[in-house]
């Protein structure tokens, strides 16, 4: 089963997992890493590394999702990239997290990252676009 690490500025990751659990119930093989302003890069790296090994016990691979491309969580996460084993997705949103848990046992990591990237983008909607549809 593919593991998930949510690495974010502050407690966003923790709360994303909590929100997901509110909707789909308890989730498996997931860890949140909170990056705070007093963390040095070594600590951040170590925390992410630890989270990866915690959610990858069966060796099926890990997806790291981060809040923002160009931010520290993403920058550090990207250094773990290992095609087929560890992939990184930036700009995480709740739909991505939910879709991950509905796919973590059925899709390979190499495909999953791409599916979730498209899915996360498609899940953004503007209300007024629906006004004149019939």
């Amino acid at each position, binding site marked *: 089963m593919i593991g998930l690490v949510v690495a974010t500025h502050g407690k966003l990751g923790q709360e994303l997992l909590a929100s997901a659990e509110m*909707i*789909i119930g308890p989730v498996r093989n997931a860890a949140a890493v909170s990056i705070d302003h007093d963390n040095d890069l070594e600590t951040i790296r170590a925390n992410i590394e630890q989270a990866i090994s915690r959610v990858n016990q069966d060796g099926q691979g890990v997806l790291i999702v981060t809040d923002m491309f160009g931010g520290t969580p993403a920058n550090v996460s990207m250094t773990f990239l290992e095609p087929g084993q560890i992939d990184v997705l930036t700009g995480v949103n709740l739909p991505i997290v939910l879709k991950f848990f509905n796919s973590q046992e059925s899709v390979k990591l190499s495909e999953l990252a791409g599916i979730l990237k498209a899915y996360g983008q498609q899940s953004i909607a503007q209300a007024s676009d629906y006004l004149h549809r019939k």
Partner: protein
Amino acid sequence: MSIVLARIDSRLVHGQVLEAWVPHVKADCIVVANDEVAGVSFQRAVMEAAVPSSIKLVIGTLEEAVRILSSAELLKKRVLLLFSNSEDALELRQLGVIYDKLNLGNMHSSSGKDRYSCTIALDTEDIHNLQKIEDQGVSIVCQCVPADRERTWHKLIQTGAR
């Protein structure tokens, strides 16, 4: 057509239904039986957009829902049937839609209702409606998401309002 889940959920189509129940019961069709939503085009459009294209969505008034549920179009479908309240669930049953089990998902609190759990609030009318449904041989259970333990609604009533 088989009804794989009949559920009362005041939120109708929302996260718990799409992300948890649809994959859990392997539904490939959602039928929303609700007079109100059937008449509001904006709400319909938003609901239609929220449901993935692999899932057929039908939104209709109670009477339309009865017709659609017995149509050839849905013959091979695994249907997740949604009501927003107990009255609609009872009425559909009386109009001839047969479901054996009724899931109480979200029945949120409003004035005059007593809270029995964090997601279920009922008034005497609800209890009366549910009792009538049960009398027709339907087993009524409370289970908000699939990971929750399924409990018969009697357990809830016995425990009493909070």
